[in-house]
């Protein structure tokens, strides 16, 4: 009887039921779309961050930026050319540490010992600057004798070309962590764990294309030939460097001793990242720790704007629509009960308990809610699918992170430093709107809640209805 009665009533009040269901459907669809787009935004941000960090890296540790000291000034590359070799082609290549700020190799061990750290490896980021060309000395003009103009130099000049590229010394013993994890080997192979001192290199595909480098070629780095064993392609955005060589060889070539510029850290659990960050700042003073959360704050551009919109306006808008839908559904249900006073009064006169009448009202409302939920899920999934198919492109600009934790003196530049080393990045990411089971479950829960909330209005009225009053009102 319950289901028969419920089905017939829903059919009788088809339009009203559809209005209630449509309102709920709209709210639920909005929640699904906003949630799925937010998930898509998060994935896009993760993708952007992975392009910086590489998969599996939870944080990086770098030395806090400090004013350059005299010693550091002396480490800046200097180019010397012989003016006596007029007209001859001359070339000089120098390797300089990115940002001139380094950490000792023991930093890796210290960080690796901290609770919550699963793995830590060091890396050395270098800049290769090659200056080559011709230097022609000038000719002396006159002697400056009496009645003659003062002596000078005539002619001479220089025609130089400057080539730069970025080079990264990577710890080949831990291939799962470090700058190369943001790229995939698309030709040849990656480093082998026993190639710590080998003259082998992996070249980024874009650099290889522009410089016409292929697997098997010999790459000259400050006079040492490195065999190109693989070509790597960044998963998205720009690579960490254009050329990768084993860390020890990079340190030797740059005459950097055992220095490193960056420690890549993987936490045992994502929940422990903050603890690890605190521990590192305490144990290794004078460093900057940059977590993925810090980097996320640096994402701007249309991706950042859209993510902010989805998180802020979108979420609140969907909640507001949902609340309005609940309210309208409740009022309509209550109004429907008002129109059915005689019906419910009669049923109570026949001996139906208030609870049974209430259940009937709630059941109808719940069915309405589920209908709205079904429509909302279908609509929400369709819109999310349309967003994914359309794949609107969002631009992610990565800038300095204002909130990056820094220990020790010096300006808090944090991720900005990392980014500064690699330049301002602008990546284009196609937006997706994935709908997962959790979102669907939430939608069903909302539909049930909507039905119950709406039904509660009417059920409350129906429960309070006294049969004599109900029958008298329509007599």
């Amino acid at each position, binding site marked *: *009887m319950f289901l028969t*009665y419920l089905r017939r009533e829903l059919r009788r009040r088809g339009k009203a039921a559809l209005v209630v269901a449509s309102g709920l459907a709209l709210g639920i669809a909005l929640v699904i779309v906003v949630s799925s787009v937010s998930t898509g935004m998060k994935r896009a941000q993760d993708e952007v961050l992975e392009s910086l960090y590489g998969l599996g890296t939870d944080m990086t540790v770098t030395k806090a930026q400090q004013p350059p000291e005299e010693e550091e000034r002396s480490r800046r590359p200097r180019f010397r050319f012989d003016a006596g070799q007029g007209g001859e082609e001359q070339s000089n290549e120098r390797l300089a540490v990115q940002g001139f700020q380094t950490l000792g190799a023991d930093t890796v061990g210290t960080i690796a010992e901290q609770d919550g750290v699963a793995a830590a490896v060091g890396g050395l980021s270098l800049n290769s600057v090659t200056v080559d060309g011709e230097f022609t000395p000038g000719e002396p003009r006159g002697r400056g004798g009496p009645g003659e103009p003062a002596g000078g130099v005539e002619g001479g000049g220089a025609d130089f070309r400057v080539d730069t590229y970025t080079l990264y010394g990577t710890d080949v013993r831990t291939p799962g962590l470090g700058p190369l994890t943001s790229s995939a080997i698309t030709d040849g192979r990656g480093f082998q764990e026993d190639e710590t001192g080998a003259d082998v290199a992996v070249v980024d595909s874009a650099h290889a294309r522009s410089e016409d480098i292929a697997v098997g070629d010999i790459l000259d780095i400050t006079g040492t030939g490195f065999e190109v064993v693989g070509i790597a392609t960044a998963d998205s955005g720009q690579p960490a460097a254009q050329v990768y060589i084993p860390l020890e060889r990079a340190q030797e070539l740059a005459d950097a001793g055992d220095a490193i510029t960056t420690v890549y850290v993987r936490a045992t659990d994502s929940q422990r990242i903050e603890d690890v960050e605190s521990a590192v700042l305490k144990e290794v003073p004078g460093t900057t720790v940059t977590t993925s959360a810090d980097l996320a704050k640096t994402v701007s551009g249309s991706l950042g704007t859209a993510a902010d919109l989805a998180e802020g306006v979108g979420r609140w808008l969907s909640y507001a629509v949902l609340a309005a839908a609940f309210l309208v559904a409740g009022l309509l249900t209550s109004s429907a009960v008002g129109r059915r006073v005689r019906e419910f009064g009669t049923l109570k006169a026949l*001996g*139906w*308990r*208030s609870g049974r009448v209430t259940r009937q009202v709630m059941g109808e409302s719940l069915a309405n809610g589920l209908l709205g939920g079904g429509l909302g899920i279908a609509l929400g999934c369709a819109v999310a699918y349309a967003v994914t198919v359309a794949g609107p492109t969002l631009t992610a600009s990565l800038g300095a992170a204002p909130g990056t934790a820094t220990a020790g003196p010096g300006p808090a530049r944090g991720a900005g430093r990392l980014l500064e080393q690699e330049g301002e990045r602008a990546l284009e990411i196609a937006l997706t709107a994935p709908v997962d089971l959790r979102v669907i479950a939430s939608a069903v829960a909302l539909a049930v809640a909507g039905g119950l909330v709406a039904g509660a209005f009417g059920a409350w009225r129906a429960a309070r209805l006294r049969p004599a009053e109900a029958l008298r009102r329509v*007599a």
Partner: protein
Amino acid sequence: MYRLTGVTKRYARGEKSVHALDGVDLTVEDGERLVVQGPTGGGKSTFLQMLGGLDRPTSGSVELDGTDLARLGESKLTRLRAERIGFVFQGFNLIPTLTARENVETALVPLGVKAAARRRRAAEALESVGLGERLGHLPGEMSGGQQQRVAIARALVKQPDVLLADEPTGNLDESMRDEVMEVLEGRWRTHGLTFVLVTHDSAIARRATRVATVRNGRLTTERVDRPEGGAAGRSGGMAGGAARR
């Protein structure tokens, strides 16, 4: 047997108080057929609702076989209505979305009768009022007389002790009225139930064993004499000792 003692029902209308019933004393014997008459707004429907346990008196007692309905808890009162009292309303009060059979079944739902038995008993009840061919029809597909017969089947399907009818022929034309009254009286005769009927129709009143009149909240009764083979006539006064006013 009903025994009403000093039943008063007051309604507050603003600052004023309206007496729908004012100190009614009455006894209705088992199997009696009582017709209640009176002017509109005189308290007839309120009186019927007191008997049916749909409303409670402001003061006084309404006893059905010794149980005071005025003091019965809501749950027990609901149960009593479900088991012992059948209602027929002027406006039929059928659920418009349910078929004739399903409407009759609604009276068996609170009794916990299983679905199959419910369907069978509802069909039998409709057969007994001559609607065996209309089981699957919706109220909107039936005439007023047929709808009222469905309502009668709904009231009687649970085999109540008491049948309370509030103007059951008020919305029907003369032929339908006779049709409905024949069904009601036939069932009263065969089942021996107590039958209290509110009506404005004098022709129906003449067919009662006793007529009660409610005017300004006060109730008087008179017994209807029914000579052998002759027309009914009223003896007047306070017949049978049932009337107190």
